């Protein structure tokens, strides 16, 4: 065998591995889905080959991709936990990608978002993966978009993406999720914060969490002066979740209408 033969032989084997992995992902095999995300996270060739095969499949996915962003501690994970419960009740398979910060000092990360979601750990219709930012800025891990594609290929109907706790500069979620929900809590900054550029500009839906807080109604009123869709919910009890699901569906319906080719006027 010449060196070139050996090289080509190795390449063939990689292609075989990729097509096997792609098939397992398409079957929705959890281990394969998880493995592929890891390979993509590590920038491995096998991961990229597999993703290309999956994306090349042609049929466009109908998955609803929903970003959940907001200040640290506002209640993003708890809201996602409630959304998972609600979408499961509607018979949807749900994938969750929960992003947390990598420490710029040690390279380590504590990925704790799923603590709030562990009630779904035994549900075969739910896949949850924690991702660390690994030095990527913008509020997401750099692999997030690819991980969404993997979950779409694996047949998840709803994909929820939780950003790191963000302020005003981490807006990459808008490029990954066509529907973005921003979570705010009462008593965190005044109206002027809302007027500033950032979070509220990329979100189609604003959620005031901790609706049982005495300041909740005032926050709601103030934000309504700045944004069309502002809802009040209490994530810990699930109050307001059906309205949030309805608002997400409405937003998606409007977007689909806008995307549909318009007929020429008669």
């Amino acid at each position, binding site marked *: 065998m010449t060196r070139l033969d050996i090289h080509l032989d190795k390449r063939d084997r990689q292609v075989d591995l990729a097509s096997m992995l792609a098939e397992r992902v398409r079957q929705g095999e*959890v*281990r394969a889905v*998880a*493995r592929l*995300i*890891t390979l993509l*996270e*590590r*920038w491995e060739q096998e991961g990229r080959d597999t993703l290309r095969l999956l994306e090349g499949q042609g049929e466009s996915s109908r998955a609803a991709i929903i970003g959940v962003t907001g200040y640290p501690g506002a209640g993003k994970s708890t809201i996602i936990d409630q959304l998972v419960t609600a979408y499961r009740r509607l018979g949807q398979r749900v994938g969750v990608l929960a992003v947390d910060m*990598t*420490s710029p000092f*040690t*390279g*380590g*990360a*504590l*990925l*704790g978002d*799923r*603590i709030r979601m*562990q009630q779904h*750990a*035994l549900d075969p219709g739910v*896949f*949850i*993966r*924690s991702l*660390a930012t*690994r030095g990527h800025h913008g509020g997401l891990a750099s692999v997030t978009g690819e991980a969404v594609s993997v979950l779409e290929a694996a047949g998840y109907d709803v994909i929820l993406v939780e950003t790191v706790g963000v302020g005003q500069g981490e807006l990459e979620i808008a490029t990954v999720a066509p529907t973005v929900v921003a979570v705010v809590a009462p008593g965190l900054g005044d109206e002027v914060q809302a007027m500033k550029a950032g979070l509220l500009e990329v979100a189609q839906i604003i959620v005031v969490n901790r609706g049982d807080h005495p300041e909740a109604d005032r926050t709601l009123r103030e934000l309504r002066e700045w944004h069309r869709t502002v809802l009040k919910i209490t994530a810990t009890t699930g109050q307001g979740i059906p309205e949030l699901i309805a608002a997400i569906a409405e937003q998606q319906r409007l977007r689909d209408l806008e995307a549909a080719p318009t007929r020429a006027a008669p």
Partner: protein
Amino acid sequence: MTVATVPLRILIGKVGLDGHDRGVKLIARALRDAGMEVIYTGLHQSPEQIVNTAIQEDVDAIGLSILSGAHNTLFRRVLELLSEQGAEDIVVFGGGIIPNEDVPALKEAGVKALFGPGTPLDDIVRFVKELRTSR
């Protein structure tokens, strides 16, 4: 990013009816500070929850803290479920109040290491770091 800098992913959690989480949080923080990605599941997890989580998160190892006395049952159940799912490559280690006489049998069953009270954090960090070369 080269392979050498890929962080290890470690699931740290507590199984069973045991609400003492001070030790497990210390371990989680020490591993994080050593540059690892720690998936912390919190309290009261069943072996099934732990194993499903480990597979979805594609971790290199599972570290369990057990102070309830149910270690013989819980560690074995976790190992059993991993092997049912074809995920024996995920290393299992643990800590807590585990009598010395139970240790050999648990290691025999497949628990890679057990750390008792008073173990220096550095020992645990070193053990986990060495998984990269042995796995």
